[in-house]
Structure formats: structure tokens, C-alpha cells
């Protein structure tokens, strides 16, 4: 195809599903996973408490839980539910699994630093993400069953997970970054085409929380060790 042919395509041509089908993915996975969401909520809300302790093991546990959330939302939601109607989503699903594996590797191979962290600020950003973003899918769908929980829905998981930047040492942090950026662009494009305007706030929040993650990153001089 010529360049002119490619230019004749719009974003809409690459989105092969409608908003109704997309928003029902949240409802369907919530119905199928019940009651495991309760555990996801407990983990999401309780996770900042692990960072309030000045204990590297607790911090590693927090990073490990975020890693699990990447894997579950990637394989569960993206590969299992979104992928069948949108094949690039399945690729992103596997990328989420790799992101989770990367974070897990950081836990085991010294990628989680022991420096002091402004844990209260981290907690504020974290709780804003895990408590605020889940409602956006509900706002667009009008169904409370569409709540997009951390550890289940990829958008909320990526947005809150972006704060893990603050837990990682330099090289790990840069490896962790590309998927956050790519996912934000990909999901924003989909929400734009589907005109799910509330959900469009999720990739925006993800990018802001990446910035927050860097801002929260402690200086090496303030070490716990």
C-alpha cells in the first residue's frame, strides 16, 4: 500500500469493537472472578502500610504484590477477555506479564532500593489511584459491576503500578518505564475512539503517576541500610 493509502486510515479503522462490548469486559471479569476481588481490594488498600514500615522486606513484599497485579490483570483481563476482540490487547497482556516478571526479578535481584521513601505521600498518590480510578469504567458504563479494580483491570493496575518507579533502582526503573508509556498511548487511543471520556482519565493518570513516582524517588544518601 502507498503512503496515501495508509494516510486514508483513521484510528477508528483499527478499533474493531464498540463501547458496549468493551465496557462489558469489566462486568464479565468481575462476575467470573467473584469473590476474589475482595482480596484485590484488601491488597490495594493495605499495600501502602507496607511502605510505612522502614523495612526492606516489607517494601519488597509491596513490589511483589504489584508484580502479581501486573501478571493477573495482564493474563486475566487482557489475554483472556480483551484479546479475543482486539488482538493487540493480547500482546499487551503478555507485556504486562513480562512487566510483572521484571518487577519480581527486581525484588529478588536487588532492584528494590532500601533508601528512605516519603511513604505518606506515596500512600496518598497510591490511594487516589486505587480508590479513584475504578469508578471511571462505572461512570462510562452506568453499571456498578464494571468497577475497574487494581489487580483486575489493567488501566488501574498500570496507573497505580506506575508508582513502583519510586521503589526501583536506576536501571530497573528505566526497564519498567516503556510499557507504562506504550500502554498509556494505546489505551488512550482506544478510549478516544470509543468515546469513553471518563476512562480517558486513566492513561492521563498513569502518566502523571509516572512523574509522581520519579518525584517520590528518594536520594541515595538517605539509605535505610
Amino acid at each position, binding site marked *: 500500500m502507498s503512503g496515501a493509502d495508509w494516510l*486514508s486510515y483513521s484510528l*477508528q479503522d483499527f478499533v*474493531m469493537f464498540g463501547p458496549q*462490548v468493551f465496557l462489558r469486559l469489566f462486568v464479565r471479569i468481575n462476575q467470573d472472578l467473584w469473590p476474589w476481588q475482595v482480596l484485590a481490594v484488601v491488597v490495594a488498600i493495605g499495600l501502602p502500610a507496607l511502605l510505612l514500615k522502614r523495612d526492606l522486606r516489607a517494601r519488597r513484599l509491596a513490589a511483589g504484590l504489584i508484580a502479581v497485579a501486573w501478571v493477573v490483570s495482564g493474563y486475566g483481563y487482557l489475554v483472556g477477555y480483551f484479546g479475543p476482540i482486539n*488482538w493487540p490487547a493480547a500482546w499487551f497482556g503478555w507485556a504486562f506479564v513480562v512487566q510483572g516478571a521484571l518487577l519480581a526479578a527486581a525484588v529478588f535481584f536487588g532492584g528494590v532500593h532500601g533508601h528512605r521513601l516519603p511513604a505518606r505521600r506515596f500512600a496518598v498518590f497510591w490511594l487516589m489511584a486505587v480508590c479513584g480510578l475504578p469508578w471511571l469504567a462505572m461512570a462510562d458504563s452506568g453499571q456498578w459491576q464494571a468497577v475497574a479494580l487494581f489487580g483486575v483491570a489493567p488501566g488501574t493496575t498500570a496507573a497505580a503500578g506506575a508508582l513502583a518507579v519510586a521503589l526501583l533502582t536506576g536501571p530497573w526503573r528505566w526497564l519498567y518505564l516503556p510499557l507504562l508509556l506504550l500502554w498509556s498511548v494505546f489505551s488512550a487511543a482506544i478510549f478516544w475512539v470509543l468515546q469513553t471520556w471518563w476512562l480517558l482519565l486513566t492513561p492521563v493518570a498513569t502518566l502523571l503517576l509516572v512523574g509522581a513516582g520519579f518525584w517520590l524517588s528518594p536520594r541515595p544518601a538517605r539509605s535505610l541500610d
Partner: protein
Amino acid sequence: MADWFSRRQFLINAGLAGLALKSPSLFANTSGTPSLSPIMRQIPGANENIPAIGMGTWITFNVGGDEQLVAQRTRVLKTFFDLGGTVVDGSPMYGTAADVVGEALDSLGAHDRIFAATKIWTGDESETRQEAARSGRRWGVERFDLLQVHNLLGWQGHIENLKQMKANGEVRYIGITTSHGRRHREFAQIMEREPLDFVQLTYNVLDREVEDRLLPLAQERGIGVIVNRPFQGGSLFRRFQSEPLPDWAGQVGVSNWAEFFLKFIISHPAVTCAIPATSKVEHMKENMGALYGALPDADQRQRMADYVRSL
């Protein structure tokens, strides 16, 4: 065959009765003669007629494993059949749409009521048969009525294979597709030299470029024309639905905007069939309303285009 025919006729009549109750104006024929027969079009060069309104599955039938939506789309397909439709068009590109159509056909027991059209969508030109076989399994059909090369992807090899498949009786008709007005020059060249039964292209009251070259060429070459994007992906409704229909809409057999847009298309003498897509039963009923009643003549078509442009 007789049993099938009577059951089918019963279903069509029952559907028409429902349509008449919903849209009495549809059947209030101004010429004074009843018009309960669907508008059929002959496939050029074949002794076969197909209804002038078919159904597309792009986006609308890609619902994945959502059983609730599969059941709802099954109702849409049932409405389509009940109101006299047969031509269903898909593509392996459309995600799970093929599986959903197959599941709906199974639920309705309607494999014998469909004119099944799909596309070959792979750059590997040796994969034509395998791709058709895969699609056949997903639709639950033994062979397709029509196989088309999707957006000219790998068309040289696929056309040769499709010609061979047609000669072997593995498919009844073959064709090529384009959309959004893309690659019309190359499209015309293929129409001029290949023995195609159908072409599929974009045509609607606003996108009329094909009137200049491709539609006359199809008539000249005896090629059937299937029209995609008759509502310009829904944007015609978004732009015009809040506007009133013209006072003279009844004269051209139109009682809503869906009929207006579709009758404009199928009244072109080169057009065999338009394939609007919808996910709603109510919209399917409106679309199928265009399969009945009067059609605009050439002057009235011009008036329809002028009216839309004036809005």
C-alpha cells in the same frame, strides 16, 4: 425442501406483519398495489436473485465470549432473516465476529437460510484455501457462497486460487473488496481483466466517487456490487438524524433516515446489495424496511443527494 420453504415463508411473513405494525407507512403504497415482496437483485451472469439489503458484521458482531451479547446478536440475525435478508458478510479480520455468526446460525438452525460471504485476509497468497476452510469452520458452513479478497491484500495469488476453487465448486462466487475509497485505480484495473462475480466497495449518499468509474464499470463487465459503509460508519446518523426527512420522503418509499440512506444506494442500477451493520434489533428493523416498497428513480435520487447536501 417444501417444508423448509414454507417455514421460511412463514417466518418472513410473520416478520413482515411485525414490520407493518411498526411502520404502517412502509406498506402504505402510494401506487395502490401491495408491495410485500422484498426488493431482489439478480447476480449478474447468474440465474440467482439475492435481497438488496444484506448485513455486515464489522464491529457489531465482534463480542468475544460474552454470552449475553451473543444472544442479543442472535436476535439481530433472527430479525434479519425474519424480514427477508440472506446475505451476511464478514471477514477473518473482524475478531470474533465469525465465531459469533457461527454460534448464532447454530442457535437459529439457519445455515440453510444464509448467503454466506466472507473474505480472504492474509498476505500469504498460498493460504487462500486454508483461510477459507478456517472461516468455514467458524461460520459452520461447508462452503461459502462468496469469497472476496479483503482490501486487495495479496490479490494476485488469491485471485488465481479463488478462480481454481470456483472451478472446483469449492465456492460459488468470487470477488474483491475495498473500502473508504482506497486504491480505486488498481481496483478498476482488476475489474477490467479478472472474471469477478462481485466487487465490494464503499458508497453512500455522501461518498459518491464510485459513481464516476467503478459502478459503470461493474455494469459494463457484469459484476455484482456489494456496498459497504452505507451509513459512513454511523456518521450519517450522527450528522442528519436530528434533521427532518423531506416532505416528499413518502414518494420515494422512505419513512426514516435508515431507509433514506439505503434506498439511495440500492436504487443505483449497478448496485446488487448494501450491507449495513447494526447491533440493535430496532435498527435492523429500520434497515430491513429499505428492502420493501418503492425505490427512487434517477431524478428522485438526485433530489435525495441535493437534500442531504443542503442540510
